């Protein structure tokens, strides 16, 4: 039986149990790095740096975890805020990315819908990418996504609806080409 996240957190807090923290990192490294890669537009190095920073922040603040929120909610919130802070420090680069870089248009035609969707998601804003990843890939409810990203529920729903419309447009364009 796998030990719950709450039990592992308790071991870290009460005994400074490094093995327990290592288990948490191993358990969450893949979904967290995937989440950050999506936010960082597939920049794997940047995403991994942010993931590492997220785990360090998690470790230094772990004593403040009270268990009211799901562990994953807390972790992804730290990750998203870490990404936003990094994004703010890269304003010039981001403006270039958002305004001129077009990963979908630049990429080679994909063989599968999944690859098409992954590429099309890069056309959405960072917040929309976060909303889509948490809802569709991490299986979170609208409420949970709103909680992680500290957004109103209506914003999450409209981000999903607008994002889907945008994805459909991109899909249609690709099929016409």
């Amino acid at each position, binding site marked *: 039986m796998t030990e719950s996240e709450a039990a592992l957190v308790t071991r870290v807090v009460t005994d*400074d149990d*490094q093995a327990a*923290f*290592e288990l948490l*990192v*191993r358990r969450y*490294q*893949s*979904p967290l*790095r*995937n989440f950050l890669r999506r936010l960082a537009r597939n920049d794997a190095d940047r995403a*991994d740096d942010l*993931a*590492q920073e997220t*785990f*360090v922040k998690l*470790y*230094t603040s772990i004593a403040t975890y009270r268990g009211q929120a799901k562990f994953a909610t807390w972790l992804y919130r730290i990750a998203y805020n870490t990404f936003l802070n990094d994004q703010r420090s890269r304003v010039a680069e981001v403006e270039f990315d958002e305004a001129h870089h077009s990963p979908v248009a630049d990429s080679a035609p994909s063989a*599968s*819908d*999944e690859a*098409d*969707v992954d590429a099309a998601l890069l056309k959405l804003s960072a917040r929309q990418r976060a909303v*889509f990843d948490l809802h*569709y*890939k991490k299986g979170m409810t609208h409420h949970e996504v709103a909680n992680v990203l500290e957004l109103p529920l209506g914003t999450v729903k409209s981000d999903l609806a607008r994002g*889907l419309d945008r*994805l*459909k447009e991109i*899909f*249609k364009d690709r099929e016409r080409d």
Partner: protein
Amino acid sequence: MDTMDARLEVALRKSETAIGDDGFTEVVMNGLPRKSHGGVKARRWTLAGAAAAGSVLTSVLGAPLESVFSTLVLGSGYSMAILAALLFIGSLAGPVAWVLYSK
């Protein structure tokens, strides 16, 4: 739901490819800040030392203190129990406050 919606839904919900650890966890663990254990250790030793010192002092000074207390009680309106309680609280207050409020 039209075909486009269905295809999008399926593609979006398809589980993502797992990223292999490839030493990532090790890098994270090596990058964690070292926590200072000095405070915790000092507090444990202080408590143990205080308990030992208290036991020794009680056994050595118990009888003489009792006679002093008896004299004081005779010369004042306070009972011996009250004086003993005040002395006990006074001797514990400092270490307890330090243990509770130090980080």
